[in-house]
């Protein structure tokens, strides 16, 4: 692997690369247990309907069917992280087409599917609402009639189909417009994007004779799987052990439950292991999507380019269940100002229920929607004022010591450097030959995100051979956290990464970690890994002091698992000797532990009017700026992205090559959001394109020829080695950058995502 003893900053090979590249890595569908049954789901066929009854006889009579569960098999009340509105299976009513009504376990997947189709459901259809406007209509049918009585964790301002409202105001927005020399106002619409991870959701649940469940699932948190499955099965958490096999991507969708509770319920009912893996169609239909949104935005500036005012009204379509809508909304409201010193701000939003698949966490978490709107307007203002788009951003960019909207102080901010490095890179790039009947343009965006949120913990101990065991609850969903966290520990002890082992997350033994999400793992888990490692390091030095009969202050850690006397090269003792000494003679095994709840500065209600925010505290702001060179086909309106430069302030790149991979992959997923990806529903509420034939993600021939990640390191004081997150940042500005490139190329703007050839042609030559 590597013989480097200071691995932070080195592009060390992924720990799991060999498993993955030989095909030996095991994902949940690769697991087989003796006596295993296969699970299938029956989804509803109505967007909104009462369920008057089920007829299970015909299904149960099919040879090979072992058990069926419906809502009647669950005794729990409604649950939910922010608004308790959800049940394990639809009960009494179905509120989106495809919603799971029953789950079946059978000897093979074909029989389970056939049995699902043999179940008869008696529906009484009800009128449905399928759009934001329909949901807000004065006489709209209600998706959740009992919404006002649902428990919510914070004031939500719920009414009728409005699940949650939120706002943030600073300065004196109403009088600010008069001071502006230019004001732009637009309405932006964005569509539902699907995460389209390569591995469909699945779970394998097995129960032992004492009634204890082991659940392997494709997830972003073993602790949340344990907690929420236990909630839905109404059993104590200690009866569930949640494990994570290799995960084939998540991007936010696997942070909440999908089928774990159904596999578990069937395992309990049959006494046999049950594996349930969704087909790609089912995965599209029943997991979660990105929030479609309408953003009404207004931005005002002075003629010298100073941004003065921004007003954003954000409408999110949350689908049938609350899921993480309250925090997506809150985050969108928080990020709508953009990374600029805009003194007057009114940012507010609401999220509605509709009779569609629920929307939830997806890389960017509300930020891509508001950034599409806000950054489109920044380039519009730049154009109106005749100022270069990078220059305009530089004039207004936040810097360290400034406040984010709501009052949090930015501890570090590399945004200016991102912008200048970006500008230089674009200017230095050789010109590509032009194509006839194509117009070429460059568009920019700047954005911020966060990396600090909620809680995490770490245990470390020194083995008797001098190697180190690191245990966190972190699930590596493909982004490489196992490797990065190993590097952090290894570096702090001057060991090579091979001498540090990283435990697979296990709810039985791993310290609690919220989930792999919010670009938080390097920063949050990195902090506790480093703190626990430093505790171990201090104990190593003290033990070494005992052995060498001197003060620990006279000793230093040396590469390769050694402790030596400062200034005396020859005198050393090994970690193995130290570990043995501790176990046998003094104090016991050398261990370190650290736990952390994000401890950054909170929003300041004296500075800003803040209402309806659903999250506790978040921060460790990250910054980025992106430039896209794109080409528009004048004949068809088709857009091709040619080259991308994307500069990201990550504090410190623990593993630069992996940081690049996140930036590049994030951009291409964002490009899909910008140009081709749209979940489509018909008037009956049926998702019409739940397949890869009909929902198109970029291929290698669609991806840009070049994506140049530019890593900027402006150390985050609270971050491990100065590091903070980057997982979501590549995606956040993509739609805006591309929209701005189209505008630069053609002089015309598209306000709706995805920017299909039709929408671009309409902008180019007017609608038909």
């Amino acid at each position: 692997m590597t013989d480097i003893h200071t691995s932070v900053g080195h592009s060390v090979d992924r720990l799991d690369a060999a498993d993955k590249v030989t095909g030996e890595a095991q994902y949940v569908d690769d697991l087989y247990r003796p006596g295993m049954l296969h699970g299938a789901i029956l989804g509803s066929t109505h967007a909104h309907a009462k369920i008057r009854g089920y007829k299970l006889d015909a299904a149960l009579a099919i040879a090979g069917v072992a058990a069926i569960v419906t809502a009647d098999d669950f005794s729990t009340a409604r649950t939910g992280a922010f608004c308790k509105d959800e049940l394990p299976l639809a009960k009494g009513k179905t509120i989106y087409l495809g919603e799971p009504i029953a789950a079946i376990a059978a000897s093979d997947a074909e029989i389970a599917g056939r049995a699902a189709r043999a179940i008869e459901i008696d529906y009484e259809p009800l009128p449905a609402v399928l759009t934001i406007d329909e949901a807000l209509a004065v006489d709209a049918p209600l998706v959740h009639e009992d919404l006002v009585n649902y428990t919510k964790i914070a004031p939500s301002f719920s009414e009728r189909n409005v699940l949650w409202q939120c706002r943030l105001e600073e300065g004196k927005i109403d009088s600010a417009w008069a001071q502006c020399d230019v004001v732009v106002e637009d309405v932006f619409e964005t569509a539902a994007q699907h995460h389209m991870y390569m591995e469909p959701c699945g779970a394998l649940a097995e129960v032992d004779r004492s009634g204890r469940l082991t659940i392997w699932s494709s997830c972003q948190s073993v602790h949340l799987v344990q907690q929420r499955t236990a909630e839905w099965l109404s059993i104590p958490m200690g009866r569930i052990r949640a494990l994570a096999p290799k995960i084939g991507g998540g991007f936010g969708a696997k942070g909440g439950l999908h089928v774990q509770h159904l596999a578990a319920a069937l395992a309990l009912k049959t006494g046999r292991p049950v594996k349930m893996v969704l087909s790609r169609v089912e995965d599209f239909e029943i997991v979660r999507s990105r929030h479609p949104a309408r953003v009404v935005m207004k931005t005002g500036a002075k003629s010298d380019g100073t941004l003065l005012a921004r007003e954003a009204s954000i409408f999110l379509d949350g689908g049938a269940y609350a899921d993480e809508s309250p925090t997506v909304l809150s985050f969108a409201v928080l990020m709508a100002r953009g990374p600029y010193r805009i003194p007057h701000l009114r940012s507010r939003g609401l999220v509605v229920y509709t009779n569609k698949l629920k929307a939830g966490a997806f890389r960017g978490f509300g930020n891509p929607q508001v950034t599409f709107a806000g950054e489109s307007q920044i380039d519009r203002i730049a154009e109106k004022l005749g100022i270069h788009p990078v220059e305009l951003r530089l004039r207004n960019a936040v810097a360290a010591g400034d406040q984010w909207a709501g009052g949090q102080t930015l501890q570090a901010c590399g945004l200016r450097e991102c912008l200048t490095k970006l500008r230089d890179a674009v200017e230095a790039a050789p010109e590509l030959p032009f194509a006839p009947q194509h117009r070429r343009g460059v568009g920019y965006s700047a954005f911020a995100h966060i990396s600090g949120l909620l809680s995490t913990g770490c245990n470390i101990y020194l083995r008797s051979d001098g190697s180190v065991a690191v245990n966190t609850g972190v699930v590596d969903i493909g982004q490489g956290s196992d490797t990065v966290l190993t590097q952090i520990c290894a570096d702090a002890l001057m060991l090579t990464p091979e001498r540090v082992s990283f435990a697979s997350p296990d709810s039985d033994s791993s310290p609690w970690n919220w989930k792999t999400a919010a670009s938080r793992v390097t920063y949050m888990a990195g902090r506790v890994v480093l703190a626990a490692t430093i505790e171990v390091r201090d104990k190593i030095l003290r033990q070494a002091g005992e052995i060498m009969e001197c003060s620990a202050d006279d000793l230093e850690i040396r590469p390769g698992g050694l402790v030596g006397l400062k200034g005396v090269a020859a005198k050393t003792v090994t970690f193995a000797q130290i570990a043995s000494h501790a176990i046998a003679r003094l104090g016991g095994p050398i261990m370190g532990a650290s736990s952390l709840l994000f401890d950054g500065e909170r929003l300041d209600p004296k500075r800003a009017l803040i209402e309806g925010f659903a999250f506790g505290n978040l921060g460790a702001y990250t910054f980025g700026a992106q430039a896209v060179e794109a080409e528009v086909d004048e004949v068809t309106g088709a857009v091709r992205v040619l080259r991308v430069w994307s500069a990201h302030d990550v504090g410190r790149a623990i593993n630069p090559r992996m940081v690049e991979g996140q930036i590049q992959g994030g951009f291409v997923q964002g490009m899909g959001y910008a140009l081709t990806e749209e979940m489509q529903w018909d008037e009956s509420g049926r998702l019409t394109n739940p397949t890869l034939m009909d929902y198109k993600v970029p291929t290698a021939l669609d991806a840009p020829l070049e994506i140049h990640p530019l890593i900027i390191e402006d150390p985050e004081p609270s971050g491990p080695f100065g590091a903070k997150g980057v997982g979501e940042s590549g995606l956040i500005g993509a739609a805006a950058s591309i929209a701005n490139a189209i505008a630069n190329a053609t002089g015309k703007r598209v306000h709706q995502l995805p920017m299909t050839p039709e929408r671009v042609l309409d902008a180019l030559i007017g609608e038909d």
Partner: protein
Amino acid sequence: MLYRPQSLGEAVGLLTSDPNARPLAGGVSLVAMLNARLIEPSALVSLARVAELHGIVTLADNALRIGAMTRHRQVAELSELIRPRAVLRQAAAAIANPTIRGMGTIGGSVALSDPAADYPAALVAMSASIEIAGSSGSRCLAAADFFLDWYTTALAPGELVTAVHLPPPADGAGVYHKLARVAGDYAIVSVALTIETAGKICAVIGACGPRPVWLETANAELARGNVAAAGDLLAAASDPLDDSRASASYRRRVIPRMLARAFAEAKALVRAL
């Protein structure tokens, strides 16, 4: 049941005796439909071992017989497909991606008659014909008369596409242009255009209706150089749907624009001859 006959006669016999049996060529469309439970055939008749369906042969008059089991990749690499025949090579090269092009066959694709697929418009534009075998023998039908409707061809029950025939080569140019959402997707609109230096012009629009769209009147306008008029005629004659790829109105709007570009390119190629 999956049968693997070794001769055309045996294959035809199996298909004739069981109306719910289907022929299996590359499987790219058929197995996908099977997996999605869109079809439930009683039997499949694999054509993998039927020698008469494999191979590419130049016939006496320099016509070309491309066996039904010829993979898209082979069609895309056929050196005989130059000048006006290049429209077929370009169409084959535009199908899906390299792996699918190595699996899918021209016979299978043609027999499926998916209007958004790439062959139909190209084959009509080059006046290809489809060789068919059934229990009463073999026949040849012009491509223009073969693609009838959504997933409907002129094949009678028990009949099988055995080859595609291309007329003798001529001087001129052929182009195939395809607009799709991403690389390898089905077409939103496709334009297949052949121009012979001797004068014959044929423009065919694909993916804009249940069958390829072409008009003698539009071809006549093109021969006179009235590209806009030809485009308007073709757009008016098309019958596209709103689907996940694009709206009908967008397709109609884009037909004349794409036709103009294809025509300009083909004309330039002819001038360069």
